[in-house]
């Protein structure tokens, strides 16, 4: 079962100040559920996000670099989730469909090799 925690617990858990987390929320880097009383409900994924930001900060990622890294990271995970959906859909498809998918994938990767092989640079 997933747990929901408050900003106080997030801060204690991650060892950071509240104002930092609030700043991240304002910048949309962390997206907890807003509560009617002005507080926030953090799900496990939000907690993991805070830990990720703490780790990136520890790498001395500058304020300016952070949005760039986050946007690339988020796009990467978007693509991975989309790919997973396609993979799952393909796995559920009937055998002939899967076989024809495999064939066209083979053809596509072969032609990709051809293009890179001709030294198109």
């Amino acid at each position, binding site marked *: 079962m997933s*747990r929901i925690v408050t900003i106080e617990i997030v801060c204690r*858990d991650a060892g950071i100040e509240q104002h930092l987390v609030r700043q991240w929320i304002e910048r949309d880097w962390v997206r907890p559920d807003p509560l009617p009383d002005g507080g926030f409900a953090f*799900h496990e994924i939000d907690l993991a996000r805070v830990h990720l930001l703490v780790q990136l900060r520890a790498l001395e990622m500058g304020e300016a670099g952070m949005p760039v890294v986050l946007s690339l990271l988020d796009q990467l*995970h978007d693509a991975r989730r989309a790919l997973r*959906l396609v993979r799952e859909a393909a796995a559920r498809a009937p055998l002939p469909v899967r076989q024809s998918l495999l064939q066209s994938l083979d053809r596509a990767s072969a032609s990709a090799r051809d293009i890179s092989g001709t030294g198109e640079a």
Partner: protein
Amino acid sequence: MAQDPYELLGVGRDASADDIKRAYRSLARKLHPDLNPGDADAEARFKAINAAHGLLSDADKRARFDRGEIDAEGQERAPPPPPGGRRWREHADGAEGARYRWHRGEAGSDDADAGEFEDLFADYLRRASAGARAGGPRRGSDVQYSLTVSFLDATLGATNRITLADDRTLDVKIPPGIETGGVLRLRGRGRPGREGGADGDALIEILVAPHPVFTRDGAVIRLDLPVSVREAVLGERVTVPTPGGSVAMRLPDNADEGTVLRLRGKGIAAHGDVPAGDVLVTLRLRIGPRDAGLVEALRNWQPPPDAPDPRAELMAALRRAGGEP
């Protein structure tokens, strides 16, 4: 940071409830502020063992502390992060990762083309599977209507005719017991589908008009019924209006102002597996014009000495509130 409550009380983690109680009592006797006046250290320790005892004497809290769910101060503890940097990746690649979907621009800015990546994929696959057929079968869209029904129709059920957007008329069956905000879905009565697609639905939001006499209270209908002094005192038969028509009812011997009587099955009509609801009748005593005969009769009447004081409850409530006049 609070110390470990087991250490504070000097007991093992497997100590029984009795062991804990004994340890707490012997420490409390030693550290009680009354026995150590002015000793700040003893006072602090006394507070600490009290808190420790409070936590460990509550079996539920103790179990949660042992499992690491709460700390020594009884505060919720965040689940410990698993080792390694795999955590964010696990979340981000799971279905819940959509929470952190990338979108162009700042938060709150107008980014209508926010990267609905999964949707794009699904859309692409749908189009591809539809092949050469342009568009393909499409379900018609739903159409929303609102319909005001009378209180009695909503209580007893009825069929109302409405006129749709395209001038067709439609008979809507109102189920008994429907309340304002209830929505009826009429399958296939929305916009027509395209190329063999199903027709959309008509969604009819119901507004129940108020009634001058009856009110709805959950599953029952309420009614205030004025009765005369004679009817109430002598327990006479009175006529009571109900949604389905008037019924005769004999007032009970002890009928009084505010007495609530139940008329079974005379309220919301039976529907599905739900039996017919009740009408709750609240008696309202009306003295009416002072008739010489009544005044005369009361003047000659002496209440018995042990008659209850009608204001006894009121005065008792005042006394309880500490505001006796």
